[in-house]
């Protein structure tokens, strides 16, 4: 109940900020619409529409694309052309232009969004340069002079009605933009976007279809910009060439960062403040560069999250003061007690994300914990037979995972050399080897984040070598990372919910309607409760101890009930006592699912694994049970140093 409440609260809060802007904006337009101050306010609202889109694309999802001013130009020039040459009313031309902009953005985006990080920024940085070069020489757009409009956003014979009516339409546009943006950000897709922004690799490993999301974000940013541009053209009745140049782009970015890049309201307020100051004060207008430079520096120094961040920190501080509490401390954090049995009981009955097949579903006979390892150790035949009964997904005798002659080179360096192994549908399998042996690379090849140079990866006998990590996640492969990859700035609950999202096949626009974040959070909360970690639910992850961070990552990997769990040194940095608890948990997980475990603690591996693989310099040098492992001269000389 608590979790669904949390989802609803943030959604309603974001709506109330939209309502606030619309109501206050409408009042300002009605009262001052015919005066100079009112017209300045309306102009700033046009920019605010653009920055609302930027908050989603650039601030929240960290996809830095310098395409906003260009698409603002597309909207403005498009409306000007349709209005002046085809006599189309501005209000009719606006949706036409937005559709055009969406199509153009789809085309352009399908090329540029293949790039990520700096490459995306640099490639799109050319767009304003190309646009301004084109526009300044294009006669039909008015060249350097600019393009006039014959009509207005709100056609009327009285100037008062034109000003006030047009202003109200702009405020309505702004309201729609904020509504759409905040609905998306507060939904389950908003969580996807947040992870994408922090770490694209983790997002892909957790099933987020990153190429699709990046394209959608690009199109969304462009359409918002086009709407802002159309509003600009309709209210100013003139489109200057400077609307599309790089300086305009940079000015938009400054508005976003001063206001607060991750907050829709912040981005809108940033645009309103900067643009309004510029129009209202002559001194500011003349010295706008100095003002923007100083403001941006000061805001970033005080809080990188901008004005919104400063306000949030202030509010939190006031609240803490009123409640008589100090700043959040690590008070009360002690190692969580993993409640293993309950995890077993609960999650086997839970439905899975995206309908991924789940071994060990209800009805399948489950061995008691003690003989689970024995069964797994019995090998492939028994494992395969069980798959048929339990999951019905694999054929008898076909291993769950098969690596065939995997090879990987980086430049001239051979990291993996002809590695062949097969794993049944349940059991715990150790992967050992000295540093640099290729263990993590093998895990990455299986998980899909690193393509092998040679060889094949098969899941249920199906070749998945070329599939990206997100598709493998949907087929039931889940993983943890060697260095903890949690999403900072979010709670434990949200971090676990990341792997429970049912939104991967839905479009961004669908989340304007219904969010399914609450469901994902409920599932995550259930997993946390089952693991005995519910106490940590609302903590921000970077405030946790290393052990608890690792446990959260493990919970995130377990929550979707994977068929194949890849664990990269889950015990590193843990104490003896913590390791023992982890071993207990792993053993029981291995009863239900297939676990491939990289670990340096040989005793831990020998205790929990039914079969152990040893890699050395990229080659598989040992493959056998724990007793052979303990006795093997290869293992002893390689790993123990005997």
């Amino acid at each position, binding site marked *: 109940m608590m979790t669904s409440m949390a989802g609803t609260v943030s959604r309603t809060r974001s709506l109330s900020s939209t309502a606030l802007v619309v109501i206050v904006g409408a009042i300002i337009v009605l009262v001052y619409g015919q005066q100079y101050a009112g017209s300045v306010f309306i102009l700033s609202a046009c920019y605010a529409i653009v920055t609302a889109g930027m908050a989603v694309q650039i601030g929240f999802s*960290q996809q830095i694309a310098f395409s906003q001013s260009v698409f603002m130009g597309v909207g403005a020039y498009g409306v000007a052309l349709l209005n002046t040459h085809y006599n189309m009313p501005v209000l009719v031309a606006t949706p036409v232009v937005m559709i055009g902009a969406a199509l153009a953005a789809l085309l352009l985006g399908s090329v540029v969004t293949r*790039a990520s990080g700096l490459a995306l920024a640099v490639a799109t940085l050319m767009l304003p340069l190309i646009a301004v070069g084109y526009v300044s020489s294009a006669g039909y757009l008015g060249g350097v002079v600019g393009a006039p409009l014959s009509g207005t956003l709100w056609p009327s014979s009285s100037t008062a009605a034109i000003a006030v009516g047009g202003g109200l339409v702009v405020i309505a546009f702004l309201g729609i933009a904020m509504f759409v943006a905040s609905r998306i950000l507060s939904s389950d897709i908003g969580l996807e976007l947040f992870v994408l922004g922090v770490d694209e690799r983790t997002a892909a490993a957790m099933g987020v279809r990153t190429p699709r999301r990046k394209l959608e974000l690009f199109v969304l940013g462009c359409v918002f910009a086009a709407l802002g541009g159309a509003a600009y053209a309709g209210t100013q009745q003139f489109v200057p060439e400077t609307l599309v140049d790089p300086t305009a782009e940079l000015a938009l970015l400054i508005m976003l960062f001063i206001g607060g890049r991750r907050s829709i309201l912040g981005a809108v307020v940033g645009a309103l403040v900067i643009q309004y100051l510029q129009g209202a004060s002559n001194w500011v207008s003349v010295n706008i560069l100095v003002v923007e430079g100083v403001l941006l520096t000061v805001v*970033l120094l005080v809080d990188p999250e901008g004005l919104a961040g400063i306000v949030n920190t202030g509010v939190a501080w006031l609240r803490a003061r009123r409640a008589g509490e100090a700043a959040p401390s690590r008070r009360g954090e002690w190692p969580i007690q993993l409640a293993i049995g309950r995890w077993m009981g609960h999650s086997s009955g839970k439905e899975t994300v995206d309908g991924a097949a789940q071994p060990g579903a209800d009805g399948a006979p489950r061995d008691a914990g003690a003989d689970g390892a024995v069964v797994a150790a019995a090998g492939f035949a028994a494992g395969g037979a069980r798959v048929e009964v339990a999951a019905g997904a694999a054929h008898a005798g076909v291993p769950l995972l098969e690596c065939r002659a995997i090879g990987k080179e980086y430049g001239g360096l051979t990291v993996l050399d002809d590695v062949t192994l097969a794993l049944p549908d349940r059991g715990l399998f150790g992967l050992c080897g000295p540093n640099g042996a290729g263990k993590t690379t093998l895990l990455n090849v299986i998980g899909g984040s690193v393509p092998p140079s040679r060889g094949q990866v098969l899941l249920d006998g199906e070749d998945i070598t070329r599939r990206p990590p997100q598709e493998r996640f949907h087929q039931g492969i889940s993983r943890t990372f060697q260095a903890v990859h949690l999403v900072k700035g979010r709670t434990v609950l949200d971090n676990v919910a990341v792997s429970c999202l049912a939104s991967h096949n839905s479009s961004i626009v669908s989340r304007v309607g219904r969010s399914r974040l609450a469901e994902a959070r409920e599932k995550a909360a259930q997993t946390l409760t089952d693991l005995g970690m519910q106490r940590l639910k609302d903590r921000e992850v970077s405030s946790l101890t290393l052990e608890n961070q690792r446990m959260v990552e493990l919970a995130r990997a377990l929550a979707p009930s994977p068929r194949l769990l890849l664990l990269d040194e889950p015990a590193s940095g843990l104490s003896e006592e913590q390791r023992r608890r982890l071993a207990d948990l792993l053993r029981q997980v291995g009863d239900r699912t297939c676990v491939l475990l990289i670990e340096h603690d040989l005793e831990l591996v020998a205790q929990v694994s039914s079969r152990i693989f040893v890699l050395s310099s990229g080659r598989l040098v040992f493959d056998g049970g724990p007793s052979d492992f303990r006795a093997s001269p290869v293992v002893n000389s390689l790993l123990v140093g005997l």
Partner: protein
Amino acid sequence: MKFGNLVLAGLVTGSIYAVFAVCVAVWYRVCNILNLAVGDFAMVGALGVDNLYRVKGLPLPVAIATTLIVVGAFAYAYDQVVLRIAQDGPRRSEGIVVTFFFTFALSFFIDGVAKMLFGTDVHAAPALWNGQSLTFASLHLERAGLLVLLCAIVIGGAFWVYIRYTLGGKALEASGENSIGARIVGIDTRRYRRLIFVATALIAAVFGIVESPITGYTYLSGATISLTGFLAAAYGGFRKPGRALLAGLFIGVLEALLGGYVSAEYGDTVLYAILAAMVLAWPRGLGFESAVSG
């Protein structure tokens, strides 16, 4: 000889881009910040000398020295006040905020102050080497152009030697690779950040003084130069000054050839389209690390 002259002109423009690209790349290597204000220091150099010499009537050497001292002192103060809080303070800023936006704000600030002090007209520092343009066979080269080329070679070469052969250069590399690791082994990473920042600001100012007689500067010229330098640095993989230098020259020559043979009007548009296509075609090969996220 149109081709030869175009290439020569392209090399001169290209060497401007190249120097700024090298400045961006070296500093990025030290502290993982892209200096988007480096071109603005060039603008201050050019317009500052012009203002002191032509308007205030100071002798040229005094004007140059004063301008350079002001630029150096400002860069030092900026590092001490802003960058120190941003990078070394208790609330260390991270990711794109630092990579892009601090020096971006600095660029706006410098341009705004320049507008207050120098106005909006096109000006240039007086030519340092007066006379007719030089002619070899049918190739023409302005004297200032030759100076620009020489400066580029000296600056590029000096950085190359410094990084490649001196202990300071190794320490500088270490600072950017792993700042904490560098500090553990006793490298004062902050000192290198400050040193290179002030040095590149001074280099940019000198370059602006030498180059401005060719193109003429306004208070907004700095942003354009920074942008092209940034692009050239990008094609050099941001961290590699040598490749940044070559990329700058390449962009300059390509720009001149496109302007001469394709279209004077749309030459730049085509140039940027080609550059964008290159980033998208070989993002790995050109060395675009995902420096933005995280």
